């Protein structure tokens, strides 16, 4: 629980995610036929409990697309949308291309695909800049409040909380991207960032 990142490491991570999410926004814009507006990525180290509070009030339903990744460090990338926007997202993604389909029947599939495209673009930026390939499992989806979305982790475990608010220009849908890493993986991430910054290994 002692892993911390200094200002330079936080700045490097923010820039890596900035590049990743920029690519993700382009992919998401193409998928959703809309312009995607992004906030500046903000990287924090929170406990699971604190991260849940950041995501919203307890009890409000959310959709979370989970993309597990394994490599020099492991974790879950999450794309989180408010639950009440889900059918609108499905209509935008699939409505014109799959006429005649019951959209509610492919709701989770469509949400997963949006997450798949966006999260993979972020992970690719992380992979390319840090020089580590990540093995990816198929994404999955969770529906529930913020604690459910973050997973059944010990509430005082640390997570890297990458807070990016994105908004689709015409449809006014917004959501968050969050990376959840445990303490061991945080050490791996810090070592990889140090290599990127050219710091000597003993400072890891």
């Amino acid at each position, binding site marked *: 629980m002692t892993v911390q990142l200094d200002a330079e490491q936080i700045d490097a991570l923010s820039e890596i995610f900035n590049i990743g999410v920029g690519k993700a926004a382009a992919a998401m814009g193409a*998928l959703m036929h809309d312009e995607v507006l992004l906030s500046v990525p903000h990287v924090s180290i929170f406990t699971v409990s604190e991260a849940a509070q950041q995501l919203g009030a307890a009890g409000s339903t959310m959709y979370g697309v989970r993309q597990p990744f394994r490599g020099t460090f492991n974790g879950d990338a999450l794309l989180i949308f408010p639950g009440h926007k889900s059918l609108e997202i499905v209509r935008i993604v699939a409505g014109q291309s799959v006429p005649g389909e019951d959209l509610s029947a492919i709701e989770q599939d469509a949400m997963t695909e949006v997450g798949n495209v966006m999260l993979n673009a972020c992970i690719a930026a992380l992979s390319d800049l840090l020089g580590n390939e990540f093995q990816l499992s198929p994404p999955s989806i969770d529906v529930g409040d913020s604690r459910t979305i973050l997973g059944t982790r010990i509430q005082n475990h640390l997570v890297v909380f990458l807070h990016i608010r994105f908004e689709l220009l015409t449809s006014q849908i917004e959501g968050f991207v969050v990376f959840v890493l445990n303490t061991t993986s945080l050490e791996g991430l810090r070592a990889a960032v140090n290599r990127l910054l050219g710091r000597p290994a003993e400072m890891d």
Partner: protein
Amino acid sequence: MIVDDSRMSRLILQGLILQAHPQWTIVHASSGEEALQLVRENPVDLVSMDFNMAGMNGLEAALALREILPAVPIAILTANVQTAVQGRIEEAGMVFIAKPITASAATQLSALAGA
């Protein structure tokens, strides 16, 4: 043949391909293992393969398909846009196409069949 564990992705790609080539017949498979079964019963001229799937991944399935259908072009259509992954796909002689599935991706895919 479209191989993807996302039904929605299969439907979107099918819709885009059929808009341009309404005479084509599309065969769906939801996994690499199912694709290997289906090609024994259905002649295919072109394969679009997802990468991140449970069981065999797309590249493993594509390599196995190529043993059965050496002359059929195979594209890996994936959101996994890591440079290392793209490199492995291209080194194996497959065509890499990045998701999302757009009209441009469908056109790129169709071109592999000479259409």
